[in-house]
């Protein structure tokens, strides 16, 4: 379980944009997302969440679909 960062994904929003799931997987430098078995959706790789560099690439790709929360604030 991640101690410092939480990443929330709303797949109901991600699904609406074709290719967005793949883009989230692609842009994350520390592999926090992986494609879900369900089409056009992602899963969060819990083991990698604490590696989050807070680069915001995922939230820029989907401002409504992804939220990154610092658990230490």
């Amino acid at each position: 379980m991640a101690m410092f960062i939480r990443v929330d994904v709303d797949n109901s929003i991600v699904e609406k944009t074709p290719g967005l799931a793949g883009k989230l997987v692609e842009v994350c430098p520390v592999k926090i997302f992986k494609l879900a078995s369900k089409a056009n959706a992602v899963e969060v790789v819990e083991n990698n969440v604490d590696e989050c560099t807070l680069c915001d690439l995922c939230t820029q790709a989907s401002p409504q679909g992804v939220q990154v929360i610092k658990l230490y604030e």
Partner: protein
Amino acid sequence: MRFYEFEAKQLLKKHRIPLVQSELAQTADEAQKLAADIGGPVILKPQAIAPGVAAASMREASDPAGAKAAAAELLGLDDGGRKPNGILVEARPTGEAVYSLSFTYDGTSKRPVVAAADMAGKIDDLGDTHPERIVRRHFSSLYPFSDYIAKELAKSLALEGNDLKRMTRIVSGLARLFLDYDLADLDVTSLVKLGDGNFVVLDVEADLEIEARHRQRPMLDELGFAKEDLRQVREPTEFELEGARIDEEDPRGIISPIAEFDGNIGLVIGAGGGSLTLTDAVRKHGGRPANYAAIGGNPSVDKARRLTKLVLTKPGVDKIAVMSNVVSNTRADLVARGVIKGITELGFEPADKILIFRVPGAWEADAAKILKKYGVEYCDRTVSISEAARRAVEKVG
């Protein structure tokens, strides 16, 4: 990475630097035969890496039987957990004059420098005892070495005529070898002028810049240097091997080199040369480091976590000091996450285990928040490296 002397001499031979007659023996019987071939008194040098072992263990033998007996003794020496890699059996000519040469990098002027003296010895040592006998010339690492620099140096040693020409050729050859092979140090501690006027190198030490080992692979292959051979002054401990494994398994950033000491203060340290300074600072304030490490290049949280666990589980270590120079690309918050995670995974409270956390620089505001949540004080750059080390030593008691 230190070369054995016989390897350094192979390089010199390839560059046509005149050498004293010398051969490598792997057994006492071979040493006896080589001594007989050379004829006359010989010097036997154990091929060792650990500091001082080779120099302190040289033996003279007046005949082949003496050479055999001396070699048998030298082959049993302890070279930091290894046995010597053979015995160099050398003729020992008497000469009219002896010189020394040293090639290295001048950290102040940031250029290579060659120093020479009209006496034998290590230039570093001669600088303390006979500074007036040393002459120096800087040269470029970007442009080809020019003979005139060598000639100027030789002239400064008051050499004239053929002596000047011969010394110039040797200095130029060594300078080119130094640059071509990315050496960090090249010390000819004894260069003898023989009765016939020729010069020969008797004793030489050479170190390769460790970061150049990949680029210099062809030369190292030629010398029979194994890829995993880093020429440590002693065999690596299990702690050091595990540190190297952690470093290798994750390409993000570095945490090595890691060295094990017998102290009680675990060190998670690094950044821009900070490791050496911090280790020295801990010692200066009376502390005993349990290890050396060198965090840099923005290691992952996982790498910092694993390093923390490695250091904190080392026998005799109860607390760690997390300190660095001012970081730029390494992120203070990611190091903080890794350290906290490592400590909590071991079942400890971070506040009980961290003597000090002084990692100023990139993302330090987030690092401070993380530490605050776990009850650990964050020290920024207003706490000097020396002061950070002092506080760590004071807390460990």
